[in-house]
């Protein structure tokens, strides 16, 4: 009986050592994968008539946090001038670089770009495109700079899956940037 008991205990302790196999979580580190990341936003203003192209960008190559954004331009426009405005979005953290603009175009029925100047007199925006449901998108449009002054231009990319109705309300922001705006 006593022998049996000893054996039982030895057996049980034996099982413990089986469990003590170690696994190193360091061998299986995977790079971060954020599916909605946008690292750069570029606004291209093409002057109607002259065709002069100016671009203004926001760049944060390593995404949120980490290093601070490397670029956040001030938009500079001529007063009382018409421009064609085309935005471009990239995820440069991926290899190859992910062209988010193309994906927005493909899923135009669930995205809406909103341009809000403050004060409103600085700029007037008119949508130049429509999705399959007839709602605006904002990947191309006309921006008319108003009287000279300084303020901001809020650029929002609204992600509105199954809810897009032409207004800003549904969905959530994928981009929400306040560019400084100078009209002179």
């Amino acid at each position, binding site marked *: 009986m006593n022998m049996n008991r000893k054996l039982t205990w030895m057996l049980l302790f034996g*099982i413990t050592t089986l*469990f003590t196999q170690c696994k190193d*979580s360091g061998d299986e*580190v995977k790079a971060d994968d954020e*599916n909605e990341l*946008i690292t750069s936003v570029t606004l291209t203003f093409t002057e109607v008539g002259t065709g002069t192209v100016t671009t203004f960008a926001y760049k944060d190559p390593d995404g949120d946090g980490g290093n601070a*954004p490397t670029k956040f331009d001030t938009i500079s426009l001529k007063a009382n001038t018409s421009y064609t405005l085309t935005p471009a979005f990239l995820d440069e953290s991926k290899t190859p670089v992910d062209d988010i603009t193309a994906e927005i175009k493909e*899923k135009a029925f669930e995205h809406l770009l909103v341009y809000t100047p403050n004060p409103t007199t600085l700029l007037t925006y008119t949508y130049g495109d429509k999705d399959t449901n007839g709602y605006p998108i904002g990947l191309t449009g006309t921006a008319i700079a108003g009287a000279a002054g300084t303020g901001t231009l809020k650029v929002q990319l609204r992600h509105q899956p199954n809810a897009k109705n032409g207004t800003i*309300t549904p969905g959530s*922001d994928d981009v929400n940037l306040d560019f400084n705006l100078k009209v002179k």
Partner: protein
Amino acid sequence: MKSYFFLFLILINSSISHGQNPSCTCFIKGFVRDQHSGQPIAGATVLLTGTTNGVFTNDKGRYEIKDLCPGAYTLEARIVGYSVYKQSIDLKTGHEENFTLLEQEVHLKDVEITAQRTDAPSSQPLTMISGNDLEQTRGQTLGESLKGISGVTSMQTGSSISKPVIHGLHSNRILILNNGVRQEGQQWGSEHAPEIDPFVATRLSVIKGAAGVRYGSDAIGGVILVEPEELPFNKPLSGEVNLVGFTNGRQGVVSSTIQGGIKGLSGFGWRAQGTIKRGGNIRTPNYFLDNTGISEKNFSLGAGYRHKGFGIDLFYSRFDTKIGIFSGSHIGSVTDLLNVIKNGEPFVKSGFSYKIGRPDQNVTHDLLKAEAHYNFQDGNRLQWTIAQQVNNRNEYDLHVPRNDSIAALNHPELTFKLNTLTNDVIWDHKPIAGKISGQIGLSTLYQYNLMTGRPLIPNFNQFNIGVFWIERYIKNDWEFEAGVRYDYRTLSTHRIASRQKISNYFDFHNASGTVGATRNLTQNLSARLNAGSTWRAPNVSELFSDGVHHGAAAYEKGDSTLHPEKAFNSIASIKYASEKLTIEIGGYFNYIKDFIYLKPQPEPILTVRGAFPYFKYTQTDASFKGIDVSAAWQFVKNITVTSKLSYLKAYDTRNDDYLVMIPANRLDNQLKYEIPLLANFHNVFFSVGNLWVARQKLVPPNSDFMPPPAAYSLWNIQAGGTIHLSNKQQLEIGLSVQNLFNTVYRDYMNRFRYYADDIGRNASLRLKWTFGA
């Protein structure tokens, strides 16, 4: 780890004719045994309260109290390492006046008493929910079930994710022991609820205050014990079926248990249990919350064997849940959040649906446990528990990847796989002089975490070893205890930053200690005092978080230079218990040095979604002072009023400011009318209750996007009873309505308070059919 003892009493009440005091020849005798092992307990004190009669059990666990006059007594058994048990005994049942000279009568009665063997510090308040109180919480999550205890609240993410909060502390600052095993999930996350099916338990207990010595560092705020009943060794087949239906969410829960011994094979016991839960969208008083359904499938299997002093138990449980996260809580930027707050109700409108879409959480938790013990002839006892847990958490965001081919794979945006192996060896030394008992234990924990997806926390490996020693001493009306513990932990983390693998290594070690005393002042009045110190190492999210916490619209950044927090806890309580009145008043003071919290930074952090308020994990000193009061008074026959008050004031003493996310003070009142027998129904009761929760006024100024919600008052009603279908079958019926008046409210501890109102009226029907027992 937790076992219980039951006193198996054989009452022999005899009266034989004798000289002057003819009737005072009654006696009580019996055995005291540990139910877990069935072994007799030597050196237990058995006494009749209010008298000087008290004896010790002998080596075989036997006791005998002689020369008793007929009358009503309270028999009390006190054993070091077990909680005190009291039982009323009537030594004149059946023949009040018939103690005549020549009459000789022998009453033989078996009284089975089960009481809990407690590893918990006896000088710390332990509150238990079991029996009828537990039945009334059936169908709810673990966090919700514990809310009836004063000093315990919950932190919620909607109504389906609920985390227990003890004295204002939660997550990594409290420990949950599931069937004796330290629950290891991703508990650092405020939206990560404990992965436990409450139907596994027949008893939920809360130890308030730091209990780090026995259960390991981290238990700064308290410990929750989730305990099933002892396996039914050598007992016939029995079982139960529970059906619960809730009107809100049109939720249905089925849970059944079947258990027994094995005929012809002595010493075996087994149990199988399973639960299925399915619910749809929750309704607030004015609107449905889109995508708030739940689907849960859990089961557990247990088997055990006892032979003489030896015993072994095996347990396996699987918890599998899919929880929809309210889609209106998804925000991209601070602007989005401010717009929802301004709107006063969610932009996303919905009807009722059982569908669970994105965003959602898919969590499985597997636990495999083996426990073996041996009781040596001389009173020593050795117990060994080994357990493996695998926690698999998948979180799906609202938005699928924009790229269709990737989206079609429907991968979760976040995956955590946490694998934990724990080992505990505990030696209970034989009682010294029947007065001193104690235990020495060694615990190890090894775990590794693998994660993929959006940046949140790194992979890590963690190893922890702890040794502890606790001694308890009982003398007369005093009970003392003292314990020490030492823990050592290594942590290695691995992550990829800027395409480089970065590994960090940490060592944490520290000592914990506890001293306490319990004094029984009179038969009804007792006082306890406990002081202790414990510590908690910073967890991986506090060290390495770096990103936007979308639920909170905050950018949270960890700090890898954080050092452990140290808690100094004192807790005192006084309890008066008589037949008609029970009052327990407890006060606590918990000082946490180097308390880790999210400190707001002056500059916001700029992201492509705009500027987010920036918070950094920082250390300060914090104090938690509070009072818990609970009282039950049967002021008229069959009518009882119960009141519970929880008061807490938390303060950042280093910065002279309040702390965020501290539960508001609350008062819970209940009036209950009981009828022992009404037509065919036994133990019938009707009750009406009110919960009043104050507004949390003690918050740092400008610390939040919206001020803490207003105070609220909720009414509820309950009724229930039991029908005896046959000798061995009974049916319990319970009805209740929560939030009776469909009151609109929001709670400060609910993270969805920005987005939507809390849950509206919810009626439920519970049926429990038991057989064989």
